[in-house]
């Protein structure tokens, strides 16, 4: 028995060491630093709640919060609608199904950096592909990432392009689990296809949609890479319209050396993610239907 316990501990030890040394301790250290003034070069100085108070009065912080909320609120539903829509189109067997699925899934494995680079080029106001396509329809060229009103939408286009396939696969797996008898019974009762979708499909895949909402919200709250790559020379441009939370946090830590301030921002983000996730789970319990048993 004792031997078995030692064995268990041995098996857990790499994870346990990593969890304590590279996760829990850094987490507590970051919490401590969030109450200090720390510029890397001198020892951290305790300042109490000063960082948190400064954050509340920082207009750029609130701008980054607004930008982040904007892409979260628009990006999450857009991704789910695109993923569910393509899944519904590809649910029933159709010739070339494998090709269509692969085509939509392909962008999800393209590295985010490469996604950002190719879209930066597609969205180029002077020589870009998108403005050329718009030109065919006699629409005048747009500024896309250079236009403060379109920059966030431009970023969302590339992110949704890169995410739809992954959501589609999860939706397809969910759709496969909906019992066929339900549809058959509804058809006999003469339910329209819209009603079948609303009354059967949607409730039955509720848990899958819920999962994608949680994953999507957590992703957008930490959104960084694409926004960094497209504005690498001028983070957050134009006029801070793409300065997202994680970007501003990075700037504070590694451009301005305000480690304490950045640590406080990181903790606020952490707490927000925990609260939002708990809230989503709470809504989930009240709204989403989970089939009996497994």
């Amino acid at each position: 028995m004792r031997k078995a316990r030692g064995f268990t501990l041995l098996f857990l030890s790499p994870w346990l060491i990593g969890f304590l040394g590279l996760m829990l301790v850094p987490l507590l250290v970051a919490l401590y630093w969030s109450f200090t003034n720390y510029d890397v070069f001198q020892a951290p100085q305790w300042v109490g709640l000063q960082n948190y108070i400064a954050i509340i009065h920082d207009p750029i912080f609130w701008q980054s919060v607004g930008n982040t909320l904007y892409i979260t609120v628009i990006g999450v539903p857009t991704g789910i609608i695109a993923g569910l829509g393509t899944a519904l189109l590809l649910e029933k067997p159709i010739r070339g199904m494998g090709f269509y699925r692969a085509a939509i899934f392909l962008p999800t494995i393209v590295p985010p950096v490469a996604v950002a680079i190719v879209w930066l080029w597609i969205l180029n106001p002077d020589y870009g592909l998108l403005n050329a396509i718009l030109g065919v329809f006699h629409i005048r060229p747009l500024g896309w990432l250079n236009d403060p009103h379109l920059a966030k939408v431009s970023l969302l286009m590339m992110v949704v392009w890169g995410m739809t396939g992954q959501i589609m696969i999860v939706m397809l797996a969910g759709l496969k689990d909906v019992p066929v008898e339900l549809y058959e019974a509804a058809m006999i009762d003469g339910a329209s296809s819209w009603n079948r979708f609303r009354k059967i499909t949607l409730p039955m895949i509720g848990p899958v949609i819920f999962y994608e909402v949680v994953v999507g919200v957590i992703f957008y709250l930490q959104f960084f890479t694409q926004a960094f790559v497209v504005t690498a020379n001028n983070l957050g441009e134009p006029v801070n319209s793409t300065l997202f939370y994680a970007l501003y946090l990075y700037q504070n830590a590694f451009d301005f050396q305000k480690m304490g301030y950045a640590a406080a921002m990181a903790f606020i983000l952490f707490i927000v993610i925990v609260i939002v996730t708990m809230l989503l789970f709470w809504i989930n319990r009240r709204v989403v239907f989970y089939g009996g048993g497994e």
Partner: protein
Amino acid sequence: MAGGLRARLLTRHVVLIIIAFIFLLPMLWMVSSSLKSNAGIFTFPPQLFPPHPHLSNYSHAVTYIPFFTYLRNSAVVSAATVVGTLISCTPAAYAFSILRWKGRDVLFYVVLATIMIPFQVVMIPLYIIFRNLGWLGTLLPLTVPPFFAMFISSYFSAGLAIFLLRQFFRTLPRDLFEAAMIDGAAPWTTFWRLALPLSRAGLITVGMFAFLSSWTMFVAPLIMLNSNTLLTLSVGLQQFQSQHFTAWNYLMAASFMFTLPVLLLFIFAQRYFVQGIALSGLKG
């Protein structure tokens, strides 16, 4: 009736072809741009099929930046991540599924909770720790943590790897392990001889995700690698862009070469991708 059905099938095909084209176009555009001449890249309206493909762009791209150095760095980091993740997460997943011990389920909640911790929170302390260890001038900040089930990427985490592997182990018939134990097999033997060979698909899936996320990760190398010769490709590609000029055709060539390993992996292992994503999404 039959005519209506055929018309509907046709519309579905047309819609699907348009959608597939939209999803494929950016990658086609990357390849097309990578083959254009310096003048051809700045022609408007642009051409999808350049009349004279410039394959030489690819040889220019690899000297424009130290491409092969970055390629090697990316390969080292990815190899370490795949091996490290499997070595550290597989036994943990085994302990969380097959082995029975007190506090197992509580501790597993901790594993799940770690998935939620944003990288931004531990990023600053880890940076300082590695700085104090003198690791910032090396690849160690990226290659060592995976061996301790710590994964510096927001797309795939060690917590998720343990969760996925645990799902695979749980599908194995329990009787098999109990029979082995009654026969007096040591725990190590059941793990090595029974669990591992039976969950090869799970190991491949997790290894693949580990490769994919380490090959493409951006934030950690951006912060942790402070020397120009140490960059990985995902960070190194930035050097094509400057304030005033971007060599788009070379950049597209380099970006395509950077994406190629992932594309090949996808073509040869599509099954595991789909399985892994569906599993992580549904069996929660």
